């Protein structure tokens, strides 16, 4: 690039935002807008807890079947499981799977909606940061980090809550006789899957709004009324 360098006319391109600082800023933003973050996260908590509830309830049923006791099988059939003589697994029914998929979809749409509003609310802040030299990817990173933190906390709370209610529900229906047959490894696996799904949803939901925010020209952003 030919450049007229009569004087100190020197332009570089090195700008940084250290990861720790990004983390700090994102955390601060969540804390400062606690109520909004809370609402966004609640959508996630509910969807993830439903997922965890269903899969852990199934884990309990499977644990009972694995015990090989005939009375457990009878109890399961009485409580609504559709089991044949030779069935050794009580996997989720197609109806359950549809419900889960639907709830996750609704949750994703809710997150996108909430994050788009959050971005609109912060036009001016984003524009200011860009005037101070923030690159597109700094903005993107801040939004992704925020969503990641919300996702982690929200899905952890949701998964634990869902799991807790699934256990409560199990005791309610089948009594304490099932306790020795609970498949704890399967539980933790189900919890991990629920948490992973929640984090993924949270990140997926923020990508579009974050890209919108990151690509905004500072001038447009500053023009926005607040």
């Amino acid at each position, binding site marked *: *690039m030919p*450049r*007229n*360098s*009569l*004087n*100190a*006319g*020197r*332009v*570089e*391109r*090195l*700008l*940084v*935002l*250290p990861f720790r*600082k990004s983390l700090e*800023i994102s955390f*601060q*933003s969540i*804390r*400062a*807008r606690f109520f909004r973050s809370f609402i966004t996260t609640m959508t996630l908590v509910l969807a993830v807890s439903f997922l965890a509830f269903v899969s852990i309830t199934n884990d309990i049923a499977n644990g009972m079947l694995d015990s090989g006791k005939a009375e457990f099988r009878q109890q399961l059939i009485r409580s609504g499981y559709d089991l044949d003589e030779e069935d050794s697994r009580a996997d989720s029914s197609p109806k359950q799977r549809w419900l889960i998929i639907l709830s996750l979809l609704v949750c994703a749409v809710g997150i996108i909606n909430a994050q788009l509003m959050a971005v609109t609310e912060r036009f*001016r*802040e984003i*524009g*200011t*940061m*860009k*005037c*101070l*030299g*923030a*690159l*597109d990817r*700094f903005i993107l990173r801040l939004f992704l980090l925020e969503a990641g933190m919300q996702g982690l906390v929200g899905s952890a709370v949701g998964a634990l809550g869902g799991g807790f209610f699934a256990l409560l529900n199990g005791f309610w229906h089948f009594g304490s006789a099932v306790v020795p047959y609970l498949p704890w490894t399967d539980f933790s696996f189900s919890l991990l899957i629920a948490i992973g799904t929640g984090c993924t949803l949270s990140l997926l939901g923020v990508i579009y709004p974050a890209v919108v925010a990151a690509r905004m*020209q*500072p*001038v447009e952003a*500053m023009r926005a009324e*607040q």
Partner: protein
Amino acid sequence: METLHSVVRVSNVTKTFRMGKNELRALKGIDLEIRAGEYISIMGPSGSGKSTLFNMIGGLDKPSSGKVYIDEVDIAQLDAYELAWLRCRKIGYIFQTFNLIQVMTALENVTLPMIFAGVNNDTAVDKGIRLLEMVGLGDRFRHKPSELSGGQQQRVAVARSLANDPSIILADEPTGNLDLSTGEEIITLLKKLSRETGVTIISATHDFKMLNVSDRVIWIRDGLVDKIEDRKDLSISIGQIGDRT
């Protein structure tokens, strides 16, 4: 002859906005040269193209035709990274609405541009506190913008604009949201800075109080430079200007 090099050079700049089927020619060919260390006021009624010109100088907007040079670098030639670097290191912005980041404290607002510039945290904090002391807010660096008055917020913004020792400070109606006496304090502060640090200050303004401290005043009307007045000519006509307010 350091002081004579032109820190901003605008040559035959036009800007056309498309609004539906109409074209709005906001700037119709502007030529300007601003020397390092000058205190410039750009005056003009709203709709005169003042803000558009201002955004061009700040590298916030690109001209439809013509060139804008900052420190002899044509900003149209810069890519996104270089432009961001320019905004971070060469230009300090002060806005009418202060535009501090609400979730950060005064000190964090001032240190943010230094963090972007790669200054390590301790150095940035030291310098941030020094800058806040300089603008008279040494004891309030932990406060959030919402806990500060308008004048104090604008002082924080002034400190922030100085964070990376820029060559230019662009102030867009810096007194527009302030009452008379606080506005005057900000003007005095800017003048003091320009005298002490030699930074070039360019401010777009309606505020006739600004004229007293400006080295030159550029009047914009209808997308063109109406006239450029030096201060010595200005002081003669200051009575008239007073009448015009």
